[in-house]
């Protein structure tokens, strides 16, 4: 085994072709796993600092600036604190699930990133290494499957804590995730229709050769963005941990590293959602206006450049997440449900029909995917986005605590009340 491994490494393969030996594949995958895991964990640590800094700047404060240069070591101090802290267990908690829940939240959050391509393939002496941990041909379906697993951790945490606030948080999160997963899945169908494939690298290639899906499929992007916020439990959809209502929601009873794991899970979910947004709608690692980076011959320079660009795009969306968080207040629970089921779901369904129809018409007219194809899609989208904006803008998203009552209904209710023996004299 060792001998064949060394042999495989020593033999000079064609750098522009995928490696032929399995051992190269295994070693490369392990290295990529370690790198991606490390980058993700360090990124999450820095994100906690970024969140606090950005919130501070938005609120005209300084933010953490005591530990290290401009507070740069704050995540390390936080981590150290969380490791040193005492783990507490509520007496009434169901221990096995109580311990399992943080891991169940954490593992899917880490797993989802595995299929997202983060740079162009890297040519090495052992062959062409794809810059994705697991280049699954069913990449996108895998993501949909794994992200919905994350809700188990939260629900089990809420239930196992044996605390009413935790339970309410867990229930809310399950309802929220299930509702928005539908809108999320449906919004991406448009992307899959255009790309004609579920492999993420093919979706990137399609965007590189035509236009980014953000321009072609704006409404799908908007729906996906909103659903991604809800899926990651970020404000304005952070009902599972709504501090003002539920103390800390599902992680009320957690302390030390277990609490930290929920935190890491939330942030790595954010990273994955941002990476997914970038991959599906902003061309992934594609450098715009050129096909130089999407084609052989591959080079290290291309890998580095595309990797950096991908990181930049992801960072922009992470910033966007934080920007939104420190701008918007939390939705009320019924507003959340109404937005998910009564706005996003019908819009997503309708959008699939319209996009599928447009694609069919374009196909019948013989317009091949390319620049014209993209422009036509873009124009259709612009019109649709305008209509959507006008409809949503007419005050239909925010519902009052009770629905609007028609004058006729109100008269009937009043008549009913006047007949009631309980009616107080003197009208209203």
């Amino acid at each position, binding site marked *: 085994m060792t001998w064949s491994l060394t042999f495989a490494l020593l033999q000079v393969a064609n750098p522009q072709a995928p490696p032929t030996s399995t051992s190269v594949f295994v070693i490369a995958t392990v290295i990529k796993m370690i790198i991606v895991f490390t980058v993700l964990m360090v990124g999450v640590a820095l994100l906690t600092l970024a969140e606090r800094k950005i919130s501070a700047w938005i609120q005209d404060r300084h933010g953490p600036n005591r530990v290290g240069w401009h507070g740069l070591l704050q995540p390390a101090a936080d981590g150290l604190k969380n490791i040193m802290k005492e783990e507490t267990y509520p007496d009434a908690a169901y221990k096995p699930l109580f311990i399992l829940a943080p891991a169940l939240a954490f593992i899917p959050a880490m797993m989802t990133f595995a299929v997202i391509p983060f740079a162009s393939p890297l040519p090495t002496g052992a062959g062409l290494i794809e810059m994705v941990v697991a280049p699954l041909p069913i990449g996108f379906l895998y993501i949909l499957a794994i992200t919905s697993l994350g809700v188990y951790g939260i629900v089990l945490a809420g239930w196992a804590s044996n605390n009413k606030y935790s339970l309410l948080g867990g229930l809310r999160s399950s309802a929220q995730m299930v509702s928005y997963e539908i809108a999320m899945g449906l919004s991406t169908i448009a992307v899959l229709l255009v790309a004609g494939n579920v492999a993420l690298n093919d979706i990137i290639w399609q965007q590189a050769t035509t236009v980014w899906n953000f321009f072609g499929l704006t409404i799908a992007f908007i729906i996906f963005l909103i659903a991604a916020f809800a899926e990651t439990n970020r404000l304005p959809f952070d009902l599972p941990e709504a501090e003002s209502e539920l103390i800390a929601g599902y992680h009320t009873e957690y302390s030390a590293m277990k609490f930290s794991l929920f935190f890491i899970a939330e942030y790595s979910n954010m990273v994955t959602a941002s990476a997914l947004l970038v991959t599906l709608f902003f061309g992934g690692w594609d450098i715009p206006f050129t096909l130089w980076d999407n084609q052989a011959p591959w080079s290290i320079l291309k890998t580095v450049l595309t990797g950096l660009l991908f990181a930049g795009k992801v960072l922009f969306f992470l910033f966007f997440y934080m920007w939104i968080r420190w*701008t918007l207040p939390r939705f009320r629970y019924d507003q959340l449900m109404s937005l998910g089921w009564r706005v996003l779901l019908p819009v997503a369904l309708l959008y699939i029909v319209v996009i599928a129809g447009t694609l069919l018409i374009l196909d019948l007219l013989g317009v091949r995917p390319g620049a014209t194809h993209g422009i036509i899609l873009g124009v259709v989208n612009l019109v649709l986005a305008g209509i959507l904006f006008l409809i949503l803008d007419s005050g239909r998203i925010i519902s009052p605590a009770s629905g609007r009552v028609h004058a006729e209904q109100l008269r009937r209710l009043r008549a009913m009340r006047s007949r009631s023996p309980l009616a107080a004299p003197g009208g209203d």
Partner: protein
Amino acid sequence: MAIGVRVVARPVEQVSYMRATLKGMALTFKHLINPHKVTTQYPEEKEPISRRWRGTHRMLTDETGKAKCVACGLCPQICPANCIKLVPGEDEEGNRYPLVYEIDEFRCIFCGYCQEVCPEEAIHVGRHYENAEYSRAGFVYDLERLTAQTHPVCEMWDPADPKGE
């Protein structure tokens, strides 16, 4: 809905979530790139305090380094909080001096009467506020501690110059 609550149809621009969101984002972004920070970075920067600030006490000394106090007993007499403990003593030449002079800063209400009443301008309230201690006993300042203080002292209100000009 409670019967009889009038539902007011509000104008669209007031109920539009989209416009409100965009406006809010513009506002937060404006603060993000151009924050007007008002935080004082405390241990490094300190806000200036008034010249009449009355903080923890300080006993002034003469040229020989001895406390100026002549143990006349006026300050414990006037102290409304009864926080000054004074035991007078007398040396061979007949000069009075404090054998024990202790101020309990926990009891003190920082009225500054002791400074006002002192005929020798010995005891002063100081322009100082960083008084943290690890024990309660540390807040009883004895004579040695009071003379060792170096912080500036309070400038009392002068009736001849009421605005301090």
